[in-house]
């Protein structure tokens, strides 16, 4: 048997006590396109970040070309011949192509750059991948596909042995995809190993040789792509023997529509999206990363200005000009990004809870004692683990930070709550507590729109599930006992059409 170019085994990694990768393995042969497949949050990007040295692995071993990599520093790993091309490119847009290709390894004589030689060097690699552009062109003037090719040229010029492509076709046209595949096939001939991450089933079969499936941070299996099909892969991705109990929600009032979203467009991300939310309902919003779920939520609360369409809350049309209006009318959004959008990390727990509710604490003079009282009340009600109500948010764990985000919006007394990935990065115990808070909310007459990549959670909590793909609603499913995760995933991956 041929020797593999990359062998990862027993890789473990956890964040804040939550295990993200458990004993994961991956083997890539020279000249092979190896597809890495898994749902959102299955651990694909974490695995790649461990490989590239961006994250430090806790256990396991990585062998590249017969040599064990024990260093954790990204620069050294690039030196060993691993190159990762992310969706957001690592190019400096303000300098030329050749300067980007030679960044960090400039061709110079006594510190003076030899421009002619540099351009010649860059041209060689651009020709190799068939990018016919003057090497002196500024990167900012290139299209997405061209930038991607520059990244690949840069990688090959470093004598790369293993190339990782993360969703390389997400933002390029079909024609450009063909060209990319041609380049990939050329790289295969040179014996370069390629790890290919993508959700587009059709292209996996076109370009991939083998496929490793991850699920919930665990290795599932590796299959030959010419011996399998979409259905089998979907099953492998979901796979688990589902052992959850669907929550009974008897609080739903079918006759009252609380939220109506009609024909919403947003740039080219959302296309003609319409959804309805009933009183007491928990509606799941499912879909892959990039399907437009968060954008939809932000359009509903007015954080993004929708290009088209209307949002009605209790029959009243929202202007959608700013978030303040939505909060006042009773619809709130709990961001998936606690650190960047949910909280002010350098401020105290009390200040964070008070922030969207300042009107409730006295006008014009704020009653600080009342703020403290309220925050202490939430600390005990939501069992927030914190040293005091004056602790800075940055010192709390993820689960407790999330509870503070919830507390801040609970106090605003809304009628519709949009939870965006409410349990991401949170341990199991805290998850159940958050589910209970959500149930309390619907019990008290509120309604919930829950965005989640976790299908178990979606099936456990929701009355109904809307699936988005590429900014369109592809399914509106009742969460009944015969609804399978495969079915949801199928709509998210293919939009429901057979044969893609």
């Amino acid at each position, binding site marked *: 048997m041929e020797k593999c170019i990359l062998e990862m085994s027993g890789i473990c990694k956890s964040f804040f006590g939550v295990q993200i990768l458990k004993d994961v393995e991956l083997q890539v042969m020279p000249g092979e396109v190896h597809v890495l497949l898994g749902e959102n949050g299955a651990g694909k990007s974490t695995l790649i970040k461990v490989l590239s040295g961006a994250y430090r692995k806790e256990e396991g071993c990585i062998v590249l070309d017969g040599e064990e990599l024990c260093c954790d520093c990204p620069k050294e790993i690039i030196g060993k011949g691993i190159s990762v091309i992310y969706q957001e490119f690592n190019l400096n847009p303000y300098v030329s192509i050749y300067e980007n290709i030679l960044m960090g390894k400039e061709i110079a004589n006594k510190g003076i750059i030899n421009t002619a030689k540099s351009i010649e060097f860059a041209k060689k690699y651009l020709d190799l991948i068939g990018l016919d552009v003057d090497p002196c062109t500024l990167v900012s003037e290139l299209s997405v596909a061209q930038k991607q090719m520059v990244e690949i040229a840069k990688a090959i010029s470093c004598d790369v042995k293993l190339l990782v492509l993360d969703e390389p076709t997400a933002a390029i046209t079909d024609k450009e995809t063909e060209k990319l595949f041609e380049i990939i096939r050329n790289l295969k001939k040179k014996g370069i190993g390629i790890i290919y991450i993508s959700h587009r089933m059709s292209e996996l079969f076109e370009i991939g040789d083998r496929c490793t499936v991850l699920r919930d941070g665990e290795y599932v299996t590796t299959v030959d792509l010419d011996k399998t099909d979409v259905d089998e892969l979907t099953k492998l991705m979901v796979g688990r023997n589902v052992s959850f109990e669907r929550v009974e929600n008897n609080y739903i009032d079918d006759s009252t529509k609380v939220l109506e979203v009609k024909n919403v467009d947003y740039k080219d991300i959302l296309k003609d999206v319409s959804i309805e939310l009933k009183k007491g309902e928990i509606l799941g919003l499912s879909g892959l990363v990039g399907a437009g779920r968060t954008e939809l939520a932000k359009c509903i609360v007015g954080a993004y200005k929708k290009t088209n369409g209307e949002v009605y809350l209790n029959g009243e049309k929202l202007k959608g000009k700013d978030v303040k209006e939505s*909060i006042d009318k009773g619809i709130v959004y709990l961001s998936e990004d606690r650190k*960047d959008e949910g909280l*002010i990390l350098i*401020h105290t727990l009390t200040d964070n809870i008070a922030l969207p509710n300042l009107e409730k604490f006295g*006008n*014009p003079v*704020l009653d600080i004692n009342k703020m403290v009282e309220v925050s202490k009340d939430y600390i005990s009600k939501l069992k927030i683990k914190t040293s*005091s109500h004056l602790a800075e948010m940055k010192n709390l764990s993820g689960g407790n930070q999330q509870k503070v985000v919830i507390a801040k919006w609970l106090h605003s007394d809304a009628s519709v709550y949009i939870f965006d990935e409410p349990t991401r990065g949170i341990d199991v115990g805290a998850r159940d507590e958050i589910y209970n808070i959500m149930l309390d909310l619907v019990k008290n007459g509120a309604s919930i729109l829950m965005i989640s990549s976790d299908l178990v959670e979606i099936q456990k909590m929701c009355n109904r599930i809307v699936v988005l793909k590429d900014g369109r609603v592809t399914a509106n499913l009742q969460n009944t006992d015969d609804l399978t995760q495969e079915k949801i995933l199928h709509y998210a991956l293919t939009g429901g059409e057979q044969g893609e």
Partner: protein
Amino acid sequence: MLLQEANKVNSIKEKLKKFDVKSLTLYIGAVLILIIFTVICSINGKDFLTTSNIQNIISQSAVIAVIGIGASLVIITGGIDLSVGSVVGFVGIFAGVLVKAGVPLFATLLICLAVGALVGAINGALVSYGKVPAFIVTLGTMQIVRGLTKVLTDGRPIAGFPESLAKITQTEILGIPVVILYVFALYALVMFTLKKTKFGRRIYAIGGNPNAAKLSGIKVQKIETLTYVIAGIFSVIGGIILLSRLSYADPNAGSSYELDAIAATVIGGIAMSGGKGKIGNTLVGALILGMLKCGLQILNVAVYYQTIITGLVIIVAVYLDKAKERKAE
């Protein structure tokens, strides 16, 4: 029993948490500087710690302290305002021109306040709606306002203001120069506003995390603009205090005051990155700068050395302020 003990420990812990180590370092520093000057002065046979000296220090720090309020507010939102000093210079000359043209003093001062607010509004609108970096916007308005000041009188100073102008600051209440009372009153007002009003909370939120602030329903751009307007108004108040003290308008007045105001802010421990700090400590920062100036003058230290020492104090102050963060790393 055990529970009671635990509660006791917790309440003590809570009190300790409330206790602000950073401010304490600043106060100790200020007292230390005071002691050092007192000792050195007495060795050299001079008096430092006298009532008149203390009053002098506060009066002379008044302008920096007042424009420091505006500078600090802007810095708390995560911005910076370099134009505050230029407005101080402009106010003097502009008021002079108006008074010479026969406008009553009271109306003159109101017009000046409006102009300051306008400069602030332009700064704020360009920063928050125009998305131009605050440093660049206010660097530009600073130059423009300075230029306008010189254009107004061809660079000549103006003298001969009415007596009533001097009276604004040069009276005493219960033996205390009224300007000192102004400073304390303004700080009391601003400290209250920051701690106890929605506006105050919101400017901290914007500086702490503008995304989270926006998603919490705060109209970030509006509040940000308003903060620059307030900074403009405080600059005018500073300018009026200076004009009243000198009864003489110099087109070069207020040069580099913006840097002193920013220095007072950072010595006071307000984070340049925004969202954190106590405005009251800016007053302490301004007083430390005033103390240095006054003390070194009494000791006959040449102006050039004064600048060097001031520079060192700024760096040392912030270095000490960052001790906790260094430890965290």
